[in-house]
């Protein structure tokens, strides 16, 4: 999966010296685990580089202030040397150094033309034209830049068979762009955790978790959890499984579901094969919450999604190993 990164999710107030920011590093680790590629639209990268330069300049000023202060008190510390040893952080290199594949995507002429048209005609995802009584000064001044990033993200999603736009910007994450995003296979996440969860839902482990959830869906609704009637899982995180000689016997994962009102329900699912009937599974939902509201724990029983294999295959592989050891 390709993740198109907007600058706002990498906005930071901390100067990055030798170590990458902790939350950036854990995001990079999560992306690496699912084989995701990061793509920085050049437009977005200009903003990221601008912020990194601001932080660098601030750090240099601080060092200079420190030098002046220490000089005033006759300190012999060589503070100037420290300033020579810091540099503007290279964000692309920082993510590459984590073992991630990183691309910088230049907008094409068509991307610019597309963004220009959207901005001028107030086409989605840009906000509709305001009434004549409102001054045009009230409009956001950076909407053209956002629209270029949107055009690049949609193009990449079409070219690569899907992508995920990671952005907090209202133009990128709002309702106005939903239809087009769905049509071109562009998923949208507004923070690192949501992005990793959405990537998790697309992995092999996430797909397996969704198979279990799909089978249990109606039972969960029947137990009083207000899930949407149509099965749709937004995020899957930390899925793990344990198998018996014939089937998956334990599955645990955290999942998120977008509710009809747009809020996100998250819960920890623990699924275990029934002790008495191996076709059945018991699902316990714990730590279920919608925003800060905590829901009651729920337990349901459902029929498993995958038919158990016979024991023959496992026994044959075990015999083959025992023949050697």
């Amino acid at each position, binding site marked *: 999966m390709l993740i198109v990164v907007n600058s706002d999710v990498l906005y930071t107030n901390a100067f990055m010296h030798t170590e990458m920011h902790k939350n950036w590093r854990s995001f990079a680790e999560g992306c690496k685990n699912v084989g995701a590629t990061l793509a920085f639209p050049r437009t977005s990268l200009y903003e990221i580089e601008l912020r990194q330069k601001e932080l660098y300049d601030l750090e240099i000023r601080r060092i200079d202030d420190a030098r002046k202060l220490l000089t005033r008190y006759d300190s012999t510390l060589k503070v100037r040397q420290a300033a020579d040893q810091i540099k503007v952080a290279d964000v692309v290199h920082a993510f590459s150094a984590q073992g991630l594949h990183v691309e910088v995507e230049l907008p094409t002429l068509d991307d610019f033309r597309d963004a220009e048209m959207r901005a001028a005609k107030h086409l989605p995802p840009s906000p509709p034209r305001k009434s004549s009584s409102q001054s045009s000064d009230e409009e956001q001044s950076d909407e053209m830049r956002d629209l270029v990033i949107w055009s690049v993200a949609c193009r990449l999603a079409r070219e690569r068979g899907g992508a995920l736009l990671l952005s907090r910007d209202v133009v990128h994450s709002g309702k106005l762009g939903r239809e087009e995003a769905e049509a071109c296979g562009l998923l949208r996440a507004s923070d690192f955790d949501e992005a990793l969860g959405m990537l998790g839902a697309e992995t092999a482990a996430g797909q*397996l978790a969704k198979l279990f959830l799909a089978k249990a869906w109606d039972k969960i609704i029947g137990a009083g959890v207000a899930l949407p009637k149509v099965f749709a899982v937004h995020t899957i995180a930390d899925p793990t*499984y344990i*198998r*018996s000689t014939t089937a998956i016997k334990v599955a645990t994962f955290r999942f998120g579901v977008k509710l009809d009102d747009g809020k996100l329900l998250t819960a920890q699912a623990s699924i275990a094969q029934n002790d008495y009937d191996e076709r059945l599974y018991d699902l316990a939902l714990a730590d279920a919450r919608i925003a800060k509201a905590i829901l009651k724990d729920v337990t349901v029983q459902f029929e498993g999604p995958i038919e158990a294999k016979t024991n023959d295959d496992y026994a044959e*592989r*075990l015999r083959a*190993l025992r*023949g*050697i050891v």
Partner: protein
Amino acid sequence: MNLRMGGQYFSDVDIPLLWGTRAVVSDKADRLSIINLEGSEAKLEILGDQPAADIEFRPLSGGAVEILDNHVPLYTFDASSKTLRGVKLKLPECIIDASGIRIGTNYFSNNTVVGFGVGLVVSEHGMGMGAPLPPNLARLRV
């Protein structure tokens, strides 16, 4: 045991390949099994290219699996490329193909190892061919 694995011939060895504390063994159909020898009893983690019963795992894209311990990823195993890659286990990557065994940047091919506890031993600090059985490992038994 006597077996051919990854282009080597191991004769009269207890463990052909020891990757950290994991014994790696190939069966006659060239399927790999990985057995954890930490502790007092051997524990089968991969059986014939697939996660063994009662082992915590996570399927990865492309057919590989990750083996975990209490939700902590230990290593990944890709059956199609016969590749072991450490996650928490800080061990060099190990690839066992038909003609050789690649450990980190080293490639072993067409060797015969006779009469050692371990044919090829891999640790965090290095690797060697023909070594005694390290102490405190469980007996290889499945």
